[in-house]
């Protein structure tokens, strides 16, 4: 790592950290506000305690990323809301469990005395059970706080900015500095929150009003201080017209988002990048106008949205998706950028030569003794089904990887062949060969610029983006990807260079 890289990433830190603090603290406050009354009900009717804790435990067993992703279709939107809902649900179990068990374990003699002196059930709860189980309840809140800080890093793919943006983009672009910054920020936040809660607990235990006020003041000061970098956004600060640019979770998308943002900024817009969005999340976000523009791939829309299983020529696919997008979602497909990022099968050159494999036909002959690696979604995608059926492909072993690790896996020989992306800079860098597809079973994947209905209705915006159409070929895209993935150059710098190299007339 170098200091320029660190400096570059540090510029994002205040914003990411501020959003992370807001998400975490918001979720925690809501989690407490919901858990305590629920716990109160469960304590009054112990028959309810079991089922309630059961439900909370089930929520807890859902992997964090899955719970967050589930919220998007459930709530029909992306961004802070689904992230917050998932985090609140996640934070509730430890608070609920500790409050219920703590309150029910208070000495029976004390509870009987409380009834005997004439307290109502509510008074027993608020004056006796809660105060006496406070240390247990606070322990639950501390657990929830630490969990929530950690899980909030996973809210990036549903469109909520957090320190997870460092981690997701850093892992994609193999930028260790970014990953470390994300982890460090989360660790600092977790420790600080835990410390403040412990201070409040101590104040309560000692009945020290001054310490209690100090911890509350420190807490508020910390939240205010941490969130000042985005306070302007929250209050609607900037006067310039705002545009939200979306991006999926891989290098090319980060570069394209920066490229679009660069164009927009030049044209006088205020561009905000919402990167790290899941592949289906980003489309829904555009359809719901939560983002204004992003780049998708013709084959992806063809298969995922139009649910088409057959392949067709690049021109036909482009034309049909344009008509369909406009009719179904009022989304404008402004056009193809010029490059194609298709699914392709890649092997190590020496291995391919040794086996005499040049095409997918050759591969099919050897498949029964080979292992194939794909990214998480590949083996459930229609492209894979199409190739498998077209060539009668049957591999000995099938393994899923994070798309960044796939290339390392094939180059180190953990798998024999991978589902690569044709614009990936690592194909050349790792000396891989892309196998021909003589039966044309793989659909075309032209990068297309998609605009939401409201964005399409802004002529100035459309005009600012139109020059990008047809301006970016495979070679330029692959080169940009290589600079980020292999030279570990900052995404925005590479995007800026790309923008200048496009020879688009500037205003």
């Amino acid at each position, binding site marked *: 790592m170098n200091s320029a890289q660190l400096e570059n990433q540090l510029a994002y830190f205040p914003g990411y950290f501020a959003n992370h603090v807001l998400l975490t603290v918001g979720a925690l406050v809501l989690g407490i506000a919901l858990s305590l009354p629920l716990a109160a009900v469960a304590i009054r009717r112990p028959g309810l305690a079991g089922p309630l804790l059961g439900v909370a435990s089930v929520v807890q067993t859902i992997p964090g990323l899955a719970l967050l992703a589930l919220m998007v279709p459930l709530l029909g939107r992306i961004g802070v809301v689904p992230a917050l809902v998932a985090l609140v649900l996640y934070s509730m179990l430890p608070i609920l469990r500790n409050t219920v068990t703590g309150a029910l374990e208070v*000495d*029976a*003699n*004390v*509870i*009987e*005395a*409380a*009834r*005997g*002196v*004439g*307290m*109502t059930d509510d*008074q027993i709860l608020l*004056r*006796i059970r809660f*105060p*006496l189980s406070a240390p247990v309840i606070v322990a639950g809140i501390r657990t929830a706080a630490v969990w929530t800080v950690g899980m909030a890093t996973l809210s990036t793919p549903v469109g909520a900015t957090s320190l997870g943006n460092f981690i997701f983009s850093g892992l994609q672009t193999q930028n260790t500095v970014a990953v470390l910054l994300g982890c460090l920020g989360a660790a600092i936040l977790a420790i600080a929150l835990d410390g403040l809660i412990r201070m409040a607990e101590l104040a309560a235990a000692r009945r020290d009003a001054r310490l209690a006020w100090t911890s509350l003041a420190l807490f508020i000061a910390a939240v205010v201080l941490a969130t000042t970098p985005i306070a302007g956004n929250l209050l609607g600060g900037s006067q310039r017209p705002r545009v939200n640019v979306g991006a999926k979770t891989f290098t090319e998308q980060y570069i394209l988002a920066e490229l679009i943002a660069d164009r927009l900024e030049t044209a006088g817009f205020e561009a905000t990048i919402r990167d790290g969005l899941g592949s289906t999340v980003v489309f829904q976000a555009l359809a719901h106008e939560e983002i204004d523009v992003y780049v998708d791939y013709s084959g992806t829309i063809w298969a995922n949205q139009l649910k088409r299983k057959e392949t067709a020529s690049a021109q036909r696919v482009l034309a049909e998706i344009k008509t369909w997008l406009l009719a179904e979602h009022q989304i404008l497909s402004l056009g193809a950028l010029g490059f194609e990022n298709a699914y392709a099968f890649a092997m190590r050159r020496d291995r391919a030569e040794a086996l005499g494999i040049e095409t997918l036909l050759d591969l099919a002959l050897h498949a029964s003794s080979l292992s194939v690696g794909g990214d998480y979604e590949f083996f459930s995608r229609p492209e894979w089904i199409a190739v498998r059926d077209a060539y009668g492909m049957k591999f000995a072993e099938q393994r899923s990887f994070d798309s960044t690790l796939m290339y390392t896996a094939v180059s180190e020989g953990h798998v024999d062949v991978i589902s690569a992306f044709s614009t990936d800079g690592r194909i050349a860098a790792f000396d891989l060969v892309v196998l021909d597809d003589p039966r044309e079973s793989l659909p075309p994947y032209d990068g297309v610029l998609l605009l939401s209905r409201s964005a399409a209705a802004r002529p100035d915006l459309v005009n600012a983006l139109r020059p990008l159409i047809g301006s970016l070929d495979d070679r330029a895209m692959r080169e940009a990807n290589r600079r980020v993935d292999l030279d570990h150059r900052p995404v925005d710098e590479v995007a800026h260079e790309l923008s200048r190299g496009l020879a688009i007339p500037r205003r």
Partner: protein
Amino acid sequence: MLSLREVSKTYPGGQLAVDRLSLELAAGETVVLLGASGCGKTTTLKMINRLVEATSGEILVDGRATKGMDPVLLRRGIGYVFQGIGLFPHWTVADNVASTPRLLGWEEGRIRARVDELLERVGLPPENYRERRPDELSGGQQQRVGVARALAAEAKVLLMDEPFGALDPVTRDGLQRELIRVREQLGLTILLVTHDVTEALLLADRIAVMDHGRIEQIASPTELFASPANEHVERLLDMPRRQSERIQNILRGTDPPGGRDDS
């Protein structure tokens, strides 16, 4: 002041804890429910302030049937000293004593005066004890606070469940004497539960001997000695007399310590 008429309690398991029990306490009277554990004496006590709901029968406090009353308000009007003491460990001594007055909405000045008066009365100088926490007190001091808490709201009826059971003999003796004094000063009507025959004899105007959820005999200590209703009552009352004789013999040197008869 306090009447129980044909009161029964059957627990959900079907166990009959109290069987058609009737009992009348005149104002200012102290009655002791005496019996072995499991005889239904604590259940009887708890039915009076409805910590346990009676299955059948009627209970009147100061002429009013408790059944129609809000149990919470009923409890605020009756003092109760618990077997387990049950002080609120997160509150100071003063806050503990002030429990019921606060629930009744007394104004703070009156509460403070009452707390100090009661702490003085139970032998805990308020200036030393007011701000202490229960865990800083000995068992005897804790039970004094328990008594003060029960008396704080100026209840005329005091229910006491083995109040001195867990205390050492010297402390118990001291507290028993103080209870007698406080009772005279405040004109309290007391129903006290114990399994300790000596305690019953020392405190009671009348003793109700209980077994299997029923009162076997209720009478003044003198009457109980003079004409016990059955063999169980007779043997129960005989025990302290024999103990006292043996103690006198030991003191005179005519009987070795650790003597024979213990039944």
